[in-house]
């Protein structure tokens, strides 16, 4: 077991070299002395689409929040393009190149679509035009609805606004917290397609997802979290066909 951990660490060290975003042995939680995450490792190489899956309460969203400084990291480090950004403020992280899309309340409902996107580029207002074009090319619907209040949009469209806003700063890596949660099945599929298109446009993506199989289908590599620890990492395809993943969700009685 100790050997396993050591060899996993070594593999992580090797692969994480040159990663756009990497976390090493992250320990974090909401209350002092109660750690939700225990020594989690993660890396995302340039251009990679990385998925984080795991059962309810595994610590997926906490891991994402810890990467973005929203949950205090007690031990371990987060590095963005080789720079230590552990526990850095959100606005500093955004200008350094991390985009973050929270799971809920992720648009300003009383502002229009365009104003929401402007909020995304408030640190770099001059590039608004150009980035707006980029976002509109990914989400044509948003261009059509630029004068509409975000609060009047459907859940799927709001998710586009939230993603679009995070893209306004030209992030090197985009963090998505359960983007498909609460959407209709069709809109869920839509979000996965959009995520993949964003990734193809050159943005590295780390996404946490409840729809594990859809996530594994589109991602290059997945992390499986269990009780705040990395259970394992492998290609999306390998994890998709791994019976251990099902066991983690439904117990050892579950069969593939």
């Amino acid at each position: 077991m100790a050997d396993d951990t050591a060899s996993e660490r070594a593999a992580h060290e090797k692969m994480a070299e040159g990663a756009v975003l990497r976390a090493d042995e992250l320990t974090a939680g909401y209350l002092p002395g109660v750690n939700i995450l225990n020594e989690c490792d993660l890396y995302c190489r340039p251009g990679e689409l990385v998925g984080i899956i795991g059962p309810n309460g595994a610590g997926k969203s906490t891991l994402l929040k810890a990467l973005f400084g929203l949950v205090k990291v007690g031990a371990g480090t987060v590095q963005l393009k080789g720079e230590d950004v552990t526990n850095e403020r959100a606005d500093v992280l955004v200008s350094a190149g991390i985009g973050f899309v929270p799971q809920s309340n992720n648009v300003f409902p009383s502002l229009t679509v365009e104003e929401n996107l402007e909020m995304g580029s408030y640190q770099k207002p001059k590039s608004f035009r150009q980035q707006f074009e980029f976002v509109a090319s990914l989400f044509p619907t948003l261009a059509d609805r630029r004068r509409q209040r975000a609060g009047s949009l459907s859940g799927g469209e709001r998710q586009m606004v939230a993603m679009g806003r995070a893209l306004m700063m030209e992030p090197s890596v985009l963090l998505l917290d359960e983007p498909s949660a609460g959407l209709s099945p069709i809109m869920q599929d839509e979000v996965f397609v959009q995520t993949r298109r964003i990734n193809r446009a050159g943005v590295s993506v780390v996404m946490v997802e409840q729809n594990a199989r859809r996530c594994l289908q589109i991602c290059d590599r997945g992390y499986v979290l269990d009780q705040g620890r990395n259970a394992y990492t492998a290609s999306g395809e390998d994890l998709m066909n791994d019976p251990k993943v099902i066991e983690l969700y439904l117990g050892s009685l579950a069969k593939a």
Partner: protein
Amino acid sequence: MPADMIDSEGDTTAVAAHRTDHSVDARGALSGVEHRPGASKPDPIVVADGIVRRFGGLTAVDVAHVEIQRGVITALIGPNGAGKTTFFNLLTGFDKPDAGTWSFGGKGLKGVPAYKIARLGMVRTFQLTKVLSRLTVLENMRVGATGQSGESLWQAMFAPLWRGQEKRNTERAMGLLHRFKLDTKKGDFAGSLSGGQRKLLEMARALMVEPELVMLDEPMAGVNPALKQSLLGHVKSLREDGMTVLFVEHDMDMVRDISDWVIAMAQGRIISEGPPDAVMSDQRVIDAYLGAHHDTELSEEDEEAILAAAQEEIQASEEESHG
């Protein structure tokens, strides 16, 4: 064999058998029940039909028919957003369905307010505990008692009219606190209890009305592992005392350990019913938890088709909201 030996030996084994046989009895009663959504049960305590609850365009609950067997422990499972808690809220009168009827012990509950449902013997706990933190543990328990004569203004002014009842309530409360090992905390503010102790207090308070059906919403959430075993024991003991238990839970080990029957929900509907092992290996349940299996790569055409379908759905909902 001498008669006295049978007596002494027989007694203890009979007691032991009586203890453990509850789960065997409970499962026995369900042995003839079909493993399918909406299966009819030999002795249902709750029967619900056509329960629908919509939030805007989202149908949170859409249960065609369900029966909850009396005297057994039934688990309600399903991925996040399946509608489990909403369904709980509807059954217990904390929310109103857009359509549907349901009954408890044969009595229709449509339009009956939550507090009356509790008095009828159907009580619940909450995922995020709702203890009254500025009252003591014992006061929390006393509040749980119903039919208190001191609630009437004129009776409240004459202590002899309610003192006896207050005493009986206190005795019952102390008995329950003892059972849940909270008796040493009776004078502490409920707000000072740990998460697990609050869960226990909420369960104990629910028992003040001597319910027939106890509904627990995620009893294990936020409880430390050391308390989990004892909480499990308490839930089982409710069944041993003849109560019916319906609980929502994500901890699959707990579900497997204590439930006689499992009902799985996804996207508001019941998708599977049966004993734990059958439900957890049901392909529909696995798909609900992990998403449908996708063997093939998502092709360019698939992507276009998905985007087109999404566009259509957006248009349709747009027309609906404007028309």
